[in-house]
């Protein structure tokens, strides 16, 4: 299943994201939804990006297309895609050609990204014309092949309106539209959310097969670790706009290092085994306005919290087979001691309450409530 073929000159492209920061303009100033994220998508691999709502995973994915919409903007960093250069610097027509041309994007809820007034075939032709495809006949033939490859009747689907297709079929149409122009970097945003179990298994299998057949570099974004386990080679975990852990899927799932990854995996009820092994993760994920702008983003829910977590951002650094951003797991003695010594004196553990002071009061947050929400949870 794992596909890490050696790179040929025209093999799958690599993606290098460096120090990417995406901010959204709000009444409280510009707040980062993605902060200092560096990540590599190795050529020919499927990477699964996991995060809860508000973790910044969709924003990060849109940055790959340089398609973050106002009030959001990419404020720093670069996204280098092999054969294309830095996408963040692309403008105008070049950018439009890259989107769909080199980078395919399958939108969350593909059912809602199709035009209800046009048949799938007409939308395919629109796509071809906007990308200056000379031979539209060949494009249609290619689309038909792709749909047939995914188990659909290509001619019928191209003649259909989106309401005539089921959820699983629309999802496959979305994948077809992302790949038909021969894109080699593909981003799938929640590809199986709202699909039934059997349809989901089917779509995941298709994603895996098409990925291998066409030599793609694929990024799958999801909130469901199960989906990543099934489809991906690499897993990247996002929390509060930061990348907290990244590594090979089996290694990370079997032995998660970051406390958030560990908590998340433990919070999934399983089909077999001891039912009470599932434990709720205390607290709740931060929103844009409640993400602390200093120190570890996960500390308010963390069992391993130390003083240093309040003041110093944990570095996203390599520990053996993976990257982790945690003071407790990968104490970065050389990097942090110099700053932490002094800062610990000045800002004791009350720093947390002070951080939010410059910001608008979050909609719903009170530490008392957080604590209560969980102490009941895992008692049984």
């Amino acid at each position, binding site marked *: 299943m794992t596909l890490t073929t050696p790179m040929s000159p025209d093999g799958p492209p690599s993606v290098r994201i460096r120090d990417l920061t995406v901010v959204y303009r709000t009444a409280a100033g510009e707040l980062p939804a993605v902060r200092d994220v560096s990540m590599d998508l190795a050529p020919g691999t499927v990477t699964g990006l996991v995060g*809860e*709502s508000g973790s910044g995973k969709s924003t990060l994915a849109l940055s790959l297309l340089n398609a973050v919409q106002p009030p959001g903007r990419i404020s720093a960093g670069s996204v280098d895609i092999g054969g294309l250069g830095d996408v963040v610097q692309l403008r105008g027509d070049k950018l439009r050609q890259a989107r769909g041309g080199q980078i395919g994007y399958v939108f969350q809820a593909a059912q809602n990204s199709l035009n209800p007034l046009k048949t799938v075939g007409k939308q395919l032709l629109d796509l071809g014309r906007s990308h200056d495809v000379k031979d539209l006949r060949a494009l249609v033939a290619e689309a038909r092949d792709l749909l047939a490859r995914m*188990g659909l009747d290509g001619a019928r689907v191209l003649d259909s309106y989106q309401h005539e297709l*089921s959820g*699983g*079929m629309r999802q496959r149409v979305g994948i077809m539209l992302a790949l038909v122009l021969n894109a080699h970097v593909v981003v799938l945003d929640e590809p199986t959310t709202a699909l*039934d*179990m*059997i*349809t*989901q*298994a*089917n779509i*995941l299998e298709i994603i895996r097969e098409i990925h291998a057949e066409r030599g793609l570099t694929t990024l799958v974004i999801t*909130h*469901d*670790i*199960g*989906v990543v*386990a*099934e489809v991906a080679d690499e897993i990247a975990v996002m929390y509060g706009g930061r990348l907290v852990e990244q590594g090979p*899927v*089996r*290694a*990370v*799932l*079997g*032995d998660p290092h970051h406390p958030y990854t560990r*908590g*998340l*995996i433990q*919070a*999934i*009820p*399983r*089909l*077999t*085994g001891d*039912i009470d092994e*599932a*434990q*709720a*993760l205390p607290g*709740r*994920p931060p929103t844009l306005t409640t993400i602390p702008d200093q120190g570890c983003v996960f500390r308010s829910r963390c069992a391993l919290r130390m003083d240093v977590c309040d003041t110093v951002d944990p570095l996203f650094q390599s520990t053996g087979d993976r990257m982790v951003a945690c003071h407790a797991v990968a104490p970065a003695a050389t990097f942090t001691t110099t700053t932490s010594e002094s800062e610990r004196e000045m800002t004791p553990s009350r720093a947390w309450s002070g951080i939010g002071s410059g910001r608008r009061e979050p*909609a*719903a947050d*009170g530490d*008392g*409530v957080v604590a*209560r*929400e*969980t*102490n*009941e*949870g*895992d*008692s*049984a």
Partner: protein
Amino acid sequence: MITGTNIVKTFKQRGNVLDKREVPALRGVDFTIPKGGAISFIGESGCGKTTLGRIIAGLETYDDGEITIGGVDMSSLRHRAQQPHFRKVQLIHQDPYSALNPTRTIHQSLHDPLKLRARQTGRSRQWTYDRAEELLNLVGLDPGYVLPRYPHQLSGGMRQRVVIARALTVDPEVLIADEAVSMIDVSLRLGILSLLRDLRERLGVSLLYITHDVATARYIGDDGDMYVIYRGQVIERGPTETIIADPVHPYTQALLSAIPVLYGVEQPGAEQVKPVQAADAASHAEDGAHCLFSSRCPFADDRCVTEWPRLGHAHESLQDPGGRVHACFHPVQRQVAAAPIQRS
């Protein structure tokens, strides 16, 4: 205790004269919700599990069959006389964002049903205030914080807890949770699930959990029965652990095979069952005297396309000692569920 016998429901599609179609949603379903017990309905979207839940909550009519609540047959009662019985059954919706009135504070949302309840039981006005706080405490919220707020000021997980508290205002005996956690953040889901489990333990309410997620159903009621529903028919029913460990109906096996395996933590089951045809194509197949799953079943033979296997009437061996019944002519136990990797 609630029992249902041979519940039938058919939706009539509106359309022009030639195009009128009848969609069978439930084809004679039997069920029992034991007092203080937990059962689950499992199935894909469109299988009728939500319709059945709404019928049990008194929100939907049924064409045929019988529902008894605490021994009283509902079909023989007029609508008004049914109400005090259906009061004992409360539904928790999937979407906590639309289940609460956005223009009313949580206090207002909880207070109306409580006032009604106070009038019915001859309690004082003060009781309603005390009870609201008590209920919020019970579901793990801070009343002082939550009561004056509007739904949009609360997170999804908190809202779902408020919805549960509201369901409890009328002292129900049965809670029906229809996909109650599917819209909640992953790290908060387990908190809601264990709250439901906890309420069952502490208040003795029965739970009916409706979902497509077998693992959460197991978490809620591993000691209860699981009903696997396919196109309006219960095709396998039995103790939850039995159904997961040794399913005999190919559809149950396909459903369990489709659940993602957490590689690194789990290994896939010994066998996997894959339906031969996509659901999209099968849903247009003619209804008739055949197994509803036969067009997708990899093990179907001639008998499956000429005879309709009914739950519990299909085969001599279909009542196994464990209390499992199924609707398959060729039941074979297959171990398809993923199992944890044993660590040394």
